[in-house]
């Protein structure tokens, strides 16, 4: 086999090595031990954070489900007054928003945080404190957001929040701002989680786990995370635009001033449709693993399935406008989006038949997970078929925005995500519970949920064809809708009783544990079923097949005896093994941070920041913002320290370096991913600029003179050079103190960026353009707002660098913090150039 990194594969033959002493386990336990009592909340280990994450997300599932029951009671009969119009409109908005943003995405991310390290046999995810931050931001922000319902301030514009209904003119109260707040959190935590997952899947796999030996769930999470990185920037931008329009009257969506309401729909659905697959793909990954388990055989068509996941992710970015077929789009566009919408069902078909083929080649055992798995295939297929129907443009004109769609989307999401999730709960709960859930009760849970789902949603197809639109708080009698709606309501309660039964069983049998878990109840074959402690596996196994536990049953014992990689702590710290991207060859040992209260503090004050903004308490918002930033820096402060030892033996006499810098390091990968996110936000903002120009060219005015543009670009180039120079100087100081020059150069670069931005803003104001004037002004100044955000971060980074130098913890010749600061500042300079040049050159003076 060819090596990816120069690693000699024959070294693998040394494993399993000889047995290692038990004392090493005690040391591992000591190092990975979680804090006790209240300080347990400062834990950052994925066993805790992942579990809290799953429980919180499930809590939101229950809460949003209760809202749905309220709505079904209201709709059980015509012209009822159970909820009232205002409450109902808040309920359906919150139901959709909470299910999509606070349940579905966080839940799959949570399952990822919980399962991935174990599946990959990593000791933890690569950035545990980032996970903790993402979790707390989500938990605190999500809860505050949900509480708005109890004071009647919950958003009521629908989860899609179309302006101008949600603009200040038609929604003057702060309900809408609460939506933007709630979504702000989930954006932050989703992006943080996605970065974590990308780096985790690509860099922390057990040695030998090449890409084509990865568990299907890891593949799914990789596609999921990449999709988040590409799709979420769009919703980040559009929530920013709407909030800025509401707060400062910048007319992005105001048709009377050169904005356009459809701009929102494009931006929202560019995120919103991939979002559906963002939810579905991880669940499909879980399905593929569980199908193999319940059929007791290897997944048939592994490569096809991977291809299908990647294809789904790719195509899903080309279908967003099928939500807009009724907006009078040009025939050619409608045709394109229709074709893409059909195409996206092909990979789904591949997956369904992969699962059928796997079931056919094995022997099924009718356990609860098996029921949920088979049930979801049926439900998902039905939802997919109605999806094909509404992908047909003329049929969509009739079905769009009716109960037919309500039925369709619930079939897809329940079959594509909720049922697989319940299957996964049953299949994997043995990892975190000391007692097993009852398989007998589980079958009842499945039966009630499966029956309830069909009773609720099957009639809705008809309700829709009979003319009942979505998002209505009531309907008129005498339209033959009464019986169908009553049936749906009854079904909803049947479905809910299934969930309730699950809760009862959890209360009776689920006991959280990190040590004496119930284990591999359903006989999975992947690494998460190795014996584990908080440190994950005692030693990190060498992976030679996709189901190592099936192919080499003794591997569990060998791992526990420490006969594989890193059977001890090499440095006395938390650490994990970083391997290469494709072949998973051991590269270096990553030092991991331990428990800390700072991520939680940063999250709480981030929540305080957004909440204060929402209620327009600006001074307090600034206060919270500062504390949040300081907390973040404080949590980072302890990382990236000089280390005493350069290399360590990871078992079998293999020496690898500890904590490297540069393009091989995991931090470098994370920063690159983050820059893609920021770059995508900028790209979408440029799209908004060009889009509004296309719609309302008459409001476009001449740009500032070219001479001024040249000055700004020169400043940006100077910033690039200074930032680059800073690191060169540091490299030249090898073996000596870093000195002041490196950070001074970075600070100079940041200052140049500030100057360039200032000139850019002055230049535009000089032409008489203002952000509130028209769509052009709003989008042009939006670019400067985005640039201002990254420039502020660049300044903070430069100051942080100076502080680290002052405390003498800047290593030479290279330093991870320096690498990150320099790279980020250079990114800012490039973005600044693009944002300066593009609107000044196009459409031209």
């Amino acid at each position, binding site marked *: 086999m060819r090596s990816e990194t120069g690693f000699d594969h024959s070294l693998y033959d040394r494993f399993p090595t000889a047995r290692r002493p038990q004392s090493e386990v005690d040391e591992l336990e000591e190092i990975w031990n979680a804090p006790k009592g209240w300080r347990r909340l400062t834990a950052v280990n994925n066993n805790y954070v992942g579990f809290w994450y799953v429980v919180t997300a499930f809590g939101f599932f229950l809460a949003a489900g209760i809202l749905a029951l309220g709505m079904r009671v209201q709709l059980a009969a015509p012209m009822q007054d159970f909820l*009232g*119009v205002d409450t109902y409109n808040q309920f359906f908005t919150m139901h959709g928003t909470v299910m999509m943003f606070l349940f579905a995405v966080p839940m799959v991310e949570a399952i990822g945080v919980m399962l991935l390290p174990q599946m990959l046999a990593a000791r933890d995810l690569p950035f545990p404190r980032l996970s903790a931050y993402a979790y707390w931001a989500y938990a605190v922000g999500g809860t505050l957001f949900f509480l708005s319902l109890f004071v009647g301030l919950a958003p009521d514009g629908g989860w899609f929040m*179309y302006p*101008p*209904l949600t603009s200040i003119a*038609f929604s003057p109260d702060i309900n809408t701002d609460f939506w933007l707040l709630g979504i702000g959190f989930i954006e932050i935590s989703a992006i943080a989680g996605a970065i974590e997952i990308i780096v985790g899947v690509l860099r922390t796999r057990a040695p030998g786990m090449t890409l084509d030996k990865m568990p299907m769930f890891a593949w799914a999470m990789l596609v999921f995370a990449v999709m988040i990185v590409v799709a979420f920037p769009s919703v980040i931008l559009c929530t920013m635009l709407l909030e800025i329009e509401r707060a400062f009257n910048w007319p992005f969506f105001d*048709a009377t001033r050169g904005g356009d*309401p*459809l701009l929102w729909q494009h931006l929202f659905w560019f995120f919103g449709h991939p979002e559906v697959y963002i939810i579905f793909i991880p669940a499909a990954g879980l399905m593929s693993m569980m199908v193999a388990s319940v059929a007791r055989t290897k997944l*048939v*068509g592994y490569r*096809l399935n991977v291809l299908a996941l990647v294809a789904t992710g790719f195509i899903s970015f080309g279908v967003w406008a099928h939500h807009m077929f*009724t*907006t*009078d789009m040009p*025939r050619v566009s*409608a*045709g394109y989006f*229709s074709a893409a919408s*059909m195409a996206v*069902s*092909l990979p789904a*078909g*591949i*997956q369904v*038949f*992969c699962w*059928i*083929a*796997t079931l*056919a*080649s*094995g022997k099924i055992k009718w356990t609860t997970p098996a029921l949920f798995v088979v049930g979801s*295939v*049926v439900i998902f*297929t*039905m939802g997919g*078929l109605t999806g*094909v*129907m509404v*992908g*047909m*443009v*003329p*049929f969509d*004109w*009739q079905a*769009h*925005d009716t109960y037919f769609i309500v039925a369709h989307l619930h079939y897809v999401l329940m079959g594509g995500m909720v049922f697989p999730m319940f299957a996964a709960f049953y299949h994997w709960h043995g990892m975190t519970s000391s007692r097993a859930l009852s398989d007998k009760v589980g079958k009842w849970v499945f039966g009630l949920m499966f029956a309830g789902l069909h009773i609720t949603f099957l009639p809705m197809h008809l309700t829709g*064809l*009979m*003319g009942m*639109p979505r*998002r209505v*708080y*009531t*309907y*008129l009698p005498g*339209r*033959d809708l009464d019986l169908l709606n009553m049936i749906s309501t009854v079904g909803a309660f049947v479905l809910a009783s299934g969930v309730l039964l699950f809760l009862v069983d959890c209360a009776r049998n689920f006991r959280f544990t990190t040590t004496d878990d119930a284990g591999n109840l359903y006989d999975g074959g992947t690494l998460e079923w190795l014996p584990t402690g908080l440190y994950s596996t005692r030693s990190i196994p060498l992976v030679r097949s996709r189901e190592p536990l099936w192919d080499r049953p003794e591997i569990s014992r060998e791992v526990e005896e420490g006969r594989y990689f890193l059977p001890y702590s090499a440095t006395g710290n938390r650490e994990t093994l970083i391997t290469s991207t494709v072949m998973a060859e051991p590269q270096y040992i990553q030092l991991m941070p331990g428990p800390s209260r700072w991520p939680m503090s940063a999250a709480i004050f981030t929540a305080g920041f957004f909440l204060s903004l929402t209620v327009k308490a600006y001074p307090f918002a600034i206060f919270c913002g500062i504390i949040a930033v300081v907390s973040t820096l404080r949590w980072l402060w302890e990382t990236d320290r000089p280390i005493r030892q350069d290399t360590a033996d990871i078992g079998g006499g293999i020496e690898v370096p500890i904590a490297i810098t540069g393009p091989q390091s995991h931090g470098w990968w994370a920063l690159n991913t983050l820059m893609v996110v920021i770059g995508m936000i900028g790209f979408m903002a440029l799209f908004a600029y060009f889009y509004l120009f296309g719609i309302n060219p008459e409001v476009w005015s001449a740009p500032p003179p070219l001479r001024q543009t040249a000055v700004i670009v020169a400043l940006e180039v100077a910033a690039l050079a200074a930032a680059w120079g800073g690191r060169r100087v540091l490299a030249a100081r090898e073996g000596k103190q870093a000195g002041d020059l490196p950070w001074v150069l970075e600070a100079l670069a940041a200052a140049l960026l500030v100057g360039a931005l200032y000139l850019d803003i002055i230049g535009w104001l000089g032409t008489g353009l203002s952000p509130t004037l028209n769509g052009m002004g709003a989008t042009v100044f939006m670019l400067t707002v985005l640039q201002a955000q990254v420039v502020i971060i660049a300044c903070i980074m430069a100051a942080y660098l100076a502080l680290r130098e002052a405390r003498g913890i800047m290593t030479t010749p290279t330093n991870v913090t320096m690498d990150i600061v320099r790279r980020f500042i250079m990114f800012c300079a490039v973005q600044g150039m693009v944002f300066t040049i593009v609107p000044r050159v196009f459409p031209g003076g």
Partner: protein
Amino acid sequence: MIDALWGWPPPVLDPAGPYAAKVTTLAWSLFALGVIVTLIVIAALWAAIKGPPRVQAMLGGERAIWIGGVAFPGIVLTALLIWGLTLTATLTDPIEGDEMRIRVTGEMWWFRVQYLDDQGRVIMEDANEIHIPVGQPVLLELESGDVIHSFWVPHLSGKKDMIPGRRTLLLVEADRPGEFGGVCAEYCGAQHALMGFVAVAHEPAAWREWRDARLARLAAADGPIETELDIARTAADNSFDAPADALAIEAERAGAISPLPVPVATGDAPLGRRLFMDVGCAACHRVAGTEANGLAGPDLTHVGSRLTLGAGILPNHLGTMMGWIGDSQSIKPGNRMPSYDMLSAEELEAIALWLEQQK
């Protein structure tokens, strides 16, 4: 309540015009396909789990995935796509330009309806009711007065959004007379649920009669009669389907020779008229030929002849009219018309009576 506009049989599957009918054929085919494929998948699942070993062996390999998951859906979807695109093209045939035009504007939460002449000028205004002749394509110019709405009469065609700052176009045609329910399909705020209207298709002769009666009523009214009549006369030059001169003659006759189908006041109607002007109704509503000239709410010039009140939600008669005026906020909470609960029953009756006379 309005029966027979909605309900069983589902209007999407019970088309009343060519545009809807084509989609109905497609819909039935899609449903058939959906059922068949669902059954195939269930059968395949069953065979995979319980079937004879020979079948299991067939299903249990990559070949089955290629056939079931790639080839079969690939062929079916390609065929569907071609049909769908062709049908889309047919249904969005270029506008000829000589269709009869009606402008419908979505307002929170009702529909403003304006009949246009071929110059695009408004010849009469109405609300929540659209009258069209059978057998003739009618071009709807859809606009919005506030937020995004969506215009949908499932019997006649698919829906189309009404978007601020844009004008979207929708062709509808009825091939049988009848009253067809319509609704707003895009969520548009508090009372999205109760924002409906009725599309009424008349036989062409009956439609002309209806139109002429309206034009005559307008012509008889004070103030803008002259211009209205002028517009009607101009309209006649390029009439929708009637011979131009005939239309002109009809309009002329209606206006000049036999004026006044102006309602005959009986009972307390004069009191009702006075109250209408005095208590505030006139600030938002227009009644042609009176000083009531408000533009914010529905034009009530022909309100007495409407099938429904409150945007398609109540049948129209004296009792519902009184109820609506006196207590519209409990019938349709949050709508833009205050409940006139300070008026006595007699006063409400008087206003309602007068309004019911506005045909």
